[in-house]
């Protein structure tokens, strides 16, 4: 929907317009902030890293980059930077991206709206189910429904092909759907 305006925004950002920097910052800081904390579970480190990310983005604005979609580009480059930072903090022990996601990437009950189209599951149950998904499934769900990204952009952020994104999404949502159906069957059996 705002693909066009992101392109224009980026154009003026590269030209060094203050207002373009401000707009870009205000538009993407909130999303990158939440995404970063999900990955790192370390608010301070994430915020410092995010500030440095924006500084570098501005200072290197003239550097030629291939950008298909600004949002996906920002997500993927911020993620890379953050993971590097986290690895530095762990001294010599090499920790893979997957391990960070496994231990940190979780959702809280407050993050789930009480209005869900997936019926028959309490917010608590739904939260537990989502948190039990694989790290990749959680990230797909996050990018799709929390950050409102389309599957093409998700593929770019997660370095997967389009079909794998769909398959991952399908697996994750099928787990939730089956849990919902089982709950529905249970509630029908209780009544009769």
């Amino acid at each position, binding site marked *: *929907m*705002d*693909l*066009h*305006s992101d392109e*224009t*925004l980026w154009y*003026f950002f590269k*030209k060094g*317009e*203050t*207002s*373009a*920097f*401000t*707009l870009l*910052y*205000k*538009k993407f*800081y*909130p*999303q990158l*902030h*939440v995404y970063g904390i999900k990955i790192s579970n370390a608010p301070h480190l994430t*915020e410092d890293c995010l*500030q440095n990310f*924006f*500084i570098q983005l*501005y*200072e290197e604005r003239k550097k030629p980059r291939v950008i298909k979609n600004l949002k996906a580009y920002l997500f993927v480059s911020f993620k890379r930077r953050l993971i590097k930072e986290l690895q530095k903090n762990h001294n010599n022990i090499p920790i893979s991206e997957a391990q960070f996601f496994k231990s940190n990437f979780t*959702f*809280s009950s*407050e*993050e*789930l*709206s009480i*209005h*869900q*189209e*997936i019926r028959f599951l309490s917010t608590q149950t*739904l939260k537990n189910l*989502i948190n039990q998904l694989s790290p990749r499934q959680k990230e797909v*769900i996050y990018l*799709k*429904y*929390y950050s409102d990204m389309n599957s093409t952009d998700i593929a770019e952020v997660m370095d997967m092909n389009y079909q794998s994104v*769909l398959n991952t*999404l*399908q697996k994750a*949502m*099928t787990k*939730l*759907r089956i849990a919902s159906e089982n709950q529905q069957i249970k509630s029908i059996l209780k009544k009769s």
Partner: protein
Amino acid sequence: MINKSKFNLQYFLDDTSFENWAKSLNKNDIAYWNNWLQNNPQHIETAESAKAIIIGINFEKQFPKIDKVNEELAKILPKIGLEPTPKKASKKSRASHKVVYFSTAAVLLILMSWTSLSLFNNHNTTVHKTNFGEIIDLKLSDGTSVVLNGNSEISYNKDNPRLLNLKGEAYFIVKSIPSTNAKFWVITNDLKVEVLGTQFHVNTREKKTNVVLDEGSIHLELNNGDVTKMIPGELVSYSKESENLIHKKVTLETPYALWRGGTYVFNEIPLKEVMFNLELTYGVEVKYSSEHLKEIPISGGIPNQNLKICIAAIEKATGTRIINKGNILQVQKDPIN
């Protein structure tokens, strides 16, 4: 084998009418897909997966507050040698430099496209206006949702968002207030729509106003003083100039054009009318290499958030080639066909 590859997850996800079924949005689509699934039980599993993906999960997004963002922004600006420009200073430079004026205006345009333009003038009027090809989702202070299509405008008194003027095209999901039975009014050149809680679509292009009701109940007060009541699934078209009133039920057989959730849904509408919609929404001009192309009928959902995708969808639906040169769309017969 062919069937297996055709009705895959992507097939369902790409189908606007299927999406309506998944979200229980449109009676026709619901009836169609319920029936289809009954006759094609082997695809139920894939269809249910697609449905689960479409309805998704509703998150209560915990983004940092705007104050926090501004605070962090204020810290970073001096570090990169940028200072927030005071408004008066930027005005001055605009007046003195044509080049600067141009780029400032362009940046302001960006602001419009993602926050929507909210003008507050002296009369306490709020105006939301979209550019060509831009769609915005609005939430009014009373809880009503409005999706405003490109090149359209709504305006209302700040204190009363439940009485608004519309130019162009919009889809409304009106928040009902049962305690006070507060009504909601949409005023166009041709008529007034009086609403309780409901979902409907209003289009004021082409010197007439079209209203399509999805849910609830509304009254229309035409500019000649007549009052008419609508029930869900009906279309009313009225022009002040010609005093021509059409009031009919939208069925699978009647030609109609609806716009909902960023998608145009057409049923047996000739290409020229579809392209006319595009002219108004994107500010382009359409030319045809041959007259008969204008009459090719289109049915189905055309996504219209993006001109490129929109054109690709129309090409596919009509078997034509549409060449985009500057702001002119040239419609030709597809050489392959």
